[in-house]
């Protein structure tokens, strides 16, 4: 089986995330890491590989990332977790790309990865932790002409059949599809493994290709900020909340104060 797992490099959510003067996300000045939600995608890809064992023939998990130079860290982390090889697509022209352009580059890279042995499974996280659009997996399915079996909280595979549980807003659904397909998984799909010491050492020897746009046959003028199909006009930091009143509960005083506060704000 040929499995590609899409991993994004994102600014650390617990750091002070900022915008650049051109209103793009600052991806260089803030520490970044493999998006935590994509760790779940790596985990599921590895579990599918482990389960396939030998009967599915040679299974290769490739971690694919589109992002700036530092983004290679996300690929490395996936390799440490157990992915077999990595591909990092990086090109100055990509900076500031929107979902549309990002999904184009990812789709081209997936096509290239499937040039010899067709890709059976594209695994994504449920959302990136910075943009959190939850749209790239559906865009990939659209671009690649593949079924989408997305937002899985439980994943089951049997041969080329995939079944997932999807917790929708109005119903919990079981969705089924036949590979090749695009799968995305939520943070309910199962704890992601930590890289072991052995995994960290092994990762150093794993193949990691760096591709530019020309390797993918994508023109520089198809991507980047200047051709984005949407434009951020302004960004404003949220004004800090004014410090509230905090009381200590002593012998029931807390409940009384709470009730009075709620009443004063007309919630009762």
């Amino acid at each position, binding site marked *: 089986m040929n499995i590609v797992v899409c991993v994004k490099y994102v600014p650390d959510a*617990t750091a002070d995330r900022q915008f650049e003067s051109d209103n793009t996300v600052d991806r260089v000045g803030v520490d970044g890491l493999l998006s935590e939600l994509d760790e779940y995608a790596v985990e599921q890809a590895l579990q599918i590989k482990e389960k396939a064992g030998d009967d599915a023939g040679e299974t290769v998990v490739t971690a694919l990332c589109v992002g700036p130079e530092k983004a290679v860290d996300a690929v490395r982390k996936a390799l440490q977790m157990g992915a077999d090889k990595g591909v990092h697509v990086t090109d100055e022209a990509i900076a500031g790309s929107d979902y549309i352009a990002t999904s184009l580059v990812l789709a081209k890279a997936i096509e290239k990865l499937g040039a010899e042995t067709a890709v059976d499974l594209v695994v994504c996280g449920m959302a990136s932790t910075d943009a959190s659009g939850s749209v790239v997996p559906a865009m990939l399915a*659209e671009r690649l002409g593949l079924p989408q079996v997305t937002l899985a909280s439980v994943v089951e595979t049997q041969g080329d059949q995939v079944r997932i549980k999807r917790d929708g807003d109005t119903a919990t659904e079981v969705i089924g599809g036949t590979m090749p*397909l695009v799968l995305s998984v939520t943070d309910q799909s199962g704890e992601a493994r930590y890289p072991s010491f052995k995994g960290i050492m092994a990762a150093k020897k794993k193949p990691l290709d760096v591709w530019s746009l020309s390797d993918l046959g994508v023109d520089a003028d198809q991507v980047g900020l200047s051709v984005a199909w949407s434009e951020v006009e302004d960004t404003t*930091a949220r004004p800090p909340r004014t410090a509230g009143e*905090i*009381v200590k509960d002593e012998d029931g005083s807390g409940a009384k104060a709470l009730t009075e506060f709620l009443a004063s704000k007309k919630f009762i």
Partner: protein
Amino acid sequence: MSEVLVLIDHAEGAVKKPTYELLTIAKRLGEPSAVFIGPADQAAAATDKVKKYGAEKVYVVDDAEIKGYLVAPKAEVLQQLAEKASPAAILIPSSGEGKEIAARLAIKLESGLITDAVDVQEGPVTTQSVFAGNFTVQAKVTKGTPIITVKPNAATPEESEGAAAVEEFSPTISDAAKTAQIVASQPRQATGRPELTEAAIVVSGGRGTGGNFEPIEGLADALGAAVGASRAAVDSGWMPHSFQVGQTGKTVSPQLYVANGISGAIQHRAGMQTSKTIVAVNKDDEAPIFELVDFGVVGDLHTVLPAATEQIKERKG
């Protein structure tokens, strides 16, 4: 004036409140045309509802042929409607499904996409809340037909009678769109409480409940509120995932949010930081949640909440 397509959000024909919000927004941008995709025999009831919120036209698409499949056919329906109507914009509810429909539609129509708008004004210019609610962003689509997914509570629904002229529409659905099959579907059980994303008041519990949500539910019922939970509470199996507030759960922006036994991690804040009034009960006076609150009680939720609930009930009489 150009049409603005609004995808109706409904469960078994019962139109959901966010649809009225989208119609209200659509009026700012052009003439609202509601799109009903569902069983044909439920269309009349839905039409009556959207008529009250200004729908001039209602496209009725019988879903008998497509309802067993995930999102892709709906994207084809909207694509074909857009090609027919040349709308000024397409508004879609910002649910998991809605965002995926919008994503596929954007590629099909070669049009820009903006997700999770919390406001949309003439232009259309959208407002989004990003980085866990720490920034607001104004954006615009610059290519094709603006496709915008809109979060619940982005507008106050305004009643205004529309013509609601019904137009049956039969799309052509490709075989490629019928590949991800809905094998089984279990409707969510009604809790009898308000919908989490729509509620004016949300009372949430976290790890600090120790798994006992009675004090949370008691207070919620006294206030007529929805119940929410942190991921820690969900991961512990105390509450279903549909109750989770935060980055990977629901985003709520109620008039009042009461966080109990919740520390206030960035991922939790991401789902509640834009609430108008925030109250917390936590026994640790250094819990980060207190940085956000308008009012906080340092104390044990197991004693503070039941006592407050009693007093609230007394006041309400």
